[in-house]
């Protein structure tokens, strides 16, 4: 559904076959673990059996003596980092921590923490050699829960962490004490005391969410070759080649120009394939052996030692008048950063009240280290957790006040001109339109009739980011265009970018041949993340297209011997005065004979996007005897700006919703007392299967973002935010119990039902 008169596009809004489709469906596409090089060695990693321990010594001599072993690497082989903070794509990173996360230094901070790596002639020899490495541990008490980790007497993980206060005046925290609380954010707006006084109803609740993993199917895999000339080449599946280049260069102590990163295809990332784990280790092993070394994680390592999203504890309070107007909000949010600081607590704080016009608000957020893997970005990082809390309370207020939940949301919706608690004022956003779309949908209008069935809705928000991209496009003599770009394709972006360039040039999507290339072959491009690629790399591709338009016009003017200003580019044609007219294809055929090749270049450096909202509607049936929740029907309405390739937009909405359903119902890291994850496999870490979700219905609401020539708005992240709350609200509607602890696994729902 379009909310405004939409420009007449020729390519945008159509559904061409994706350019990389055949390779992917026939199995020819090369993923991270498919890299094969002459003389390649195989690496294996020794990982910590303990969640928290001092490393007293490491003896690698027996491993080194095993036949077929070529090198063993420990942290001692990596250059010292000192206390440096480096900007690495999705945020600033403490290099001392990143170094120790890649290979543990004095301490192991979570089970699965890499300690040493071996390169050998076969993977089996490498694995056997790992077992021969002797590590003398002093085992320490682990702390796995965010609230316990904040206590004064909690075991402290890192000796260099003091609480950094951001936004509270004076600083509310003791900056001299060594602690697990790395950051304390405070955001304030208006006067919450006055706001709560004005409220007729105040609801305050506590919530917990579990540590959950992105669950990408492809494990991390990297191959590196440290050449005799000192240049390093890395082949890897990543969301950001330039970020891998930067991280690898920093960790190996070489200039960035000595590192070239070649992207393979990527089998899912969702934020988890930005930070490096393997490339510097493979590079270090390669330096020692002079041969390329491949490292591939197994599934357990992916779960135990990459970057899931934080578990959280939250206390949220909202006040409203009896006619349903929010007067005040207050939130206390603690996120588990994992072993090292860096949870998405800041976006969590910014998102907690982001869907509403809350006149008075205060948010306290804490970034807390615990003995779990260092967390990383996961699709709308931090927003899903807080959306669960806020949207559950909003539902409770609606039920108390007997106000229809869609109407309540429309009454309080974030819209152009509303200021968020963290400061920014919204531009053109489409929250209201998504709520209206759900309210008016066939789904919402169809009553539920069965026993123990219920319906819930929830709205979520994600900022979306802009950042930097580069692209070049060259005109081929047959009238096609080769597009060269640097955004690794995790969601159909090749097609989305090719379509924007095609639209700009007035040619077909099939006439553009997109290629994602290595770091030496395209200009700097930020990570594929923040729902930015179709937006920002799209702008770069359009700019490359405009550059081609200009050069084509100049060339035609030269051929026609007329003034350049008398030539214009229109609808895929170059038009001069009188009968002077070339189609794109006609002129393309002449360019090599009339002055040589035409190559367009485009870059983008975008401050921000306008932000995206989605409203979801979930119907569930609860098995009242077992507590098991079945999703009967599920609809996503989302403001998608302009849907470039609607199938991939729908795919993003469906995929995000399914991941959110996983958070809602079954996904969690399950730890034993001693701090080891007991369910580090896809059998026991239960992402939804095809049997667990219905076909997710989608409603594409198009409120174009004025910041993009075609109105593109990032779509990938916001759909993960509403499902836990929508499902919790539906469970309440079905059986009258309020679930405030994720996942809402059968045993927890059953326990609540039995309490009634």
């Amino acid at each position, binding site marked *: 559904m379009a909310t405004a008169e939409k420009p007449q596009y020729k390519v945008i809004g159509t559904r061409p076959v994706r350019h990389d489709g055949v390779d992917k469906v026939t199995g020819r596409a090369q993923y991270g673990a498919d890299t094969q090089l002459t003389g390649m060695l195989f690496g294996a990693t020794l990982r910590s059996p303990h969640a928290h321990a001092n490393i007293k010594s490491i003896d690698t001599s027996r491993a080194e003596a095993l036949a077929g072993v070529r090198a063993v690497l420990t942290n001692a082989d990596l250059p010292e980092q000192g206390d440096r903070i480096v900007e690495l794509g999705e945020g600033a990173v403490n290099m001392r921590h990143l170094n120790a996360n890649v290979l543990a230094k004095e301490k192991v901070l979570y089970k699965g923490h890499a300690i040493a790596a071996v390169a050998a002639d076969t993977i089996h020899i490498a694995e056997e050699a790992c077992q021969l490495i002797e590590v003398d541990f002093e085992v320490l008490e682990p702390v796995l829960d965010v609230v316990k980790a904040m206590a004064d007497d909690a075991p402290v993980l890192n000796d260099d962490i003091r609480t950094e206060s951001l936004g509270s005046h004076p600083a509310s925290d003791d900056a001299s004490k060594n602690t697990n609380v790395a950051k304390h954010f405070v955001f304030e707006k208006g006067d919450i005391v006055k706001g709560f006084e004005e409220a007729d109803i105040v609801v305050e609740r506590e919530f917990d969410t579990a540590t959950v993993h992105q669950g990408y199917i492809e494990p991390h895999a990297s191959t590196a070759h440290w050449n005799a000339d000192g240049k390093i080449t890395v082949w890897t599946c990543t969301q950001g080649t330039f970020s891998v280049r930067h991280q690898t260069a920093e960790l190996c102590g070489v200039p960035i120009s000595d590192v070239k990163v070649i992207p393979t295809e990527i089998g899912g990332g969702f934020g988890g394939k930005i930070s490096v784990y393997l490339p510097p280790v493979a590079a270090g092993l390669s330096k020692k052996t002079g041969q390329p070394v491949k490292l591939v994680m197994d599934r357990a390592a992916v779960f135990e030692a990459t970057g899931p999203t934080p578990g959280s504890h939250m206390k949220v309070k909202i006040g409203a008048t009896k006619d349903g107007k929010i007067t005040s909000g207050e939130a206390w949010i603690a996120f588990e950063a994992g072993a090292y600081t860096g949870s998405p607590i800041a976006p969590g704080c910014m998102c907690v009240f982001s869907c509403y016009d809350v006149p008075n608000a205060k948010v306290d957020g804490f970034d807390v280290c615990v003995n779990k893997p260092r967390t990383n970005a996961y699709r709308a990082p931090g927003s899903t957790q807080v959306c669960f809390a806020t949207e559950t309370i909003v539902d409770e207020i609606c039920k108390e006040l007997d106000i229809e939940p869609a109407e309540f949301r429309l009454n309080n919706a974030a819209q152009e001109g509303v200021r968020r608690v963290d400061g920014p004022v919204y531009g053109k956003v489409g929250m209201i339109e998504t709520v209206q779309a759900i309210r008016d949908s066939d789904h919402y209008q169809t009553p539920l009739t069965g026993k123990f069935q219920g319906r819930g809705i929830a709205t979520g928000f994600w900022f979306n980011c802009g950042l930097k991209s580069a692209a070049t496009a060259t005109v081929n003599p047959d009238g096609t265009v080769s597009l060269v770009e640097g955004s690794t394709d995790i969601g159909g972006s090749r097609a989305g970018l090719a379509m924007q360039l095609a639209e700009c040039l007035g040619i077909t999507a099939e006439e553009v041949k997109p290629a994602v290339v290595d770091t030496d072959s395209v200009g700097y491009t930020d990570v594929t993340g923040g729902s930015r690629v179709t937006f920002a790399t799209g702008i770069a591709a359009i700019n490359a297209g405009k550059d081609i338009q200009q050069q084509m016009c100049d060339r035609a003017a030269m051929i026609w011997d007329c003034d350049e200003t008398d030539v214009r580019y229109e609808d895929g044609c170059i038009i001069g005065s009188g009968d002077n007219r070339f189609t794109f294809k006609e002129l393309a055929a002449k360019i090599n004979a009339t002055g040589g090749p035409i190559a367009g270049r485009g870059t983008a450096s975008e401050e921000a996007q306008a932000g995206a909202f989605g409203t979801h509607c979930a119907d569930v049936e609860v*098995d009242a005897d077992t507590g098991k929740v079945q999703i009967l029907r599920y609809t996503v309405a989302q403001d998608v700006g302009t849907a470039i390739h609607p199938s991939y937009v729908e795919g993003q909405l469906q995929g995000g919703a399914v991941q959110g359903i996983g958070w809602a119902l079954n996904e969690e890291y399950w730890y034993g007392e001693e701090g080891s994850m007991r369910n580090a496999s896809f059998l026991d870490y239960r992402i939804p299967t095809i049997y667990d979700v219905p076909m997710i219905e989608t409603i594409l609401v198009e409120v174009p973002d004025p910041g993009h020539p075609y109105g593109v708005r990032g779509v990938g992240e916001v759909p993960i935010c509403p499902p836990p709350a929508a499902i919790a609200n539906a469970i309440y509607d079905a059986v009258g119990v309020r679930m405030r602890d994720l996942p809402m696994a059968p*045993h927890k729902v059953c326990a609540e039902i039995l309490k009634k």
Partner: protein
Amino acid sequence: MRDFEYEAPTTLSTAIELLAQQDGSAKPLAGGTDLIDHVRTGRLEPDLLIDVKKINELNVLELNGDGLRLGAAVPCYKIYGTPEISQQYAALTDSCRIIGGIQIQSRASVGGNLCNSGPAADSIPSLIVLGGVCVIAGPNGTREVAAEDFCTAPGKNVLEAGELLVEIKFPARAANSGSHYRRFIPRNEMDIAVVSVGASVELDENQQNFGSARIALGAVAATPLFAQAASDALAGQPVNAESIANAAAAAKEIATPITDMRGTAEYRTHLIGVLIERVINAAVSQARGEAICYKPGH
């Protein structure tokens, strides 16, 4: 993964000989769906894998007036692909249909599932309630063990070094009998039972009273359990909610569940009652020739 040798004998005696020679460091390989994974991850480090799929005795699948003979290496798909077995030994085929996905079922054998002896193994409660008898061959000849006596602890069973499970025999089914197996899992597929229940019932000729019954529980103790008292509680009783509730109460008595990532002990005990009711009712329906409609995993 450590290197190992592979043999594929075609006679039972050669297999027994190989097993005995290796003194416990050989593992029989049928479907291999668990074994290969264990070897790859280093949980098992056998010196020799003995592929038993080429031995005739382990590939028997025979249904006649005397009952059913099920060779230990017969894959799941063959079992549920035989309509007469699905009709007469429904619990067994209920199990075979939910062990792994299609690919796994085309390789995995019930014999292997039994010999792995997991507390939550999906086939074992069905073997118990259908009166399965395990035929074991070894260096000292052949012996028979009732299915409920086969497992001794998680991953452990009565097989001595050098012994091999050859087949499982089931008695012929009585008139007016029905059976069913189901498990409760948090997802709808691809999961390990939180609790599972198998039941076989024989009704009187009016189909209003239980003649006899056998109930077995999975995932609530160190081994799958035959619920003797619960089974006895149904004998001679009318088919109604009260009888079934009494059986459920008796079954809960023998369970010693643990709390783990799949559920709490308390929840598991609760689920025994829920599942017994559902499973007995389904077995009764089957005995009466009524259609059974159920959602796997519930």
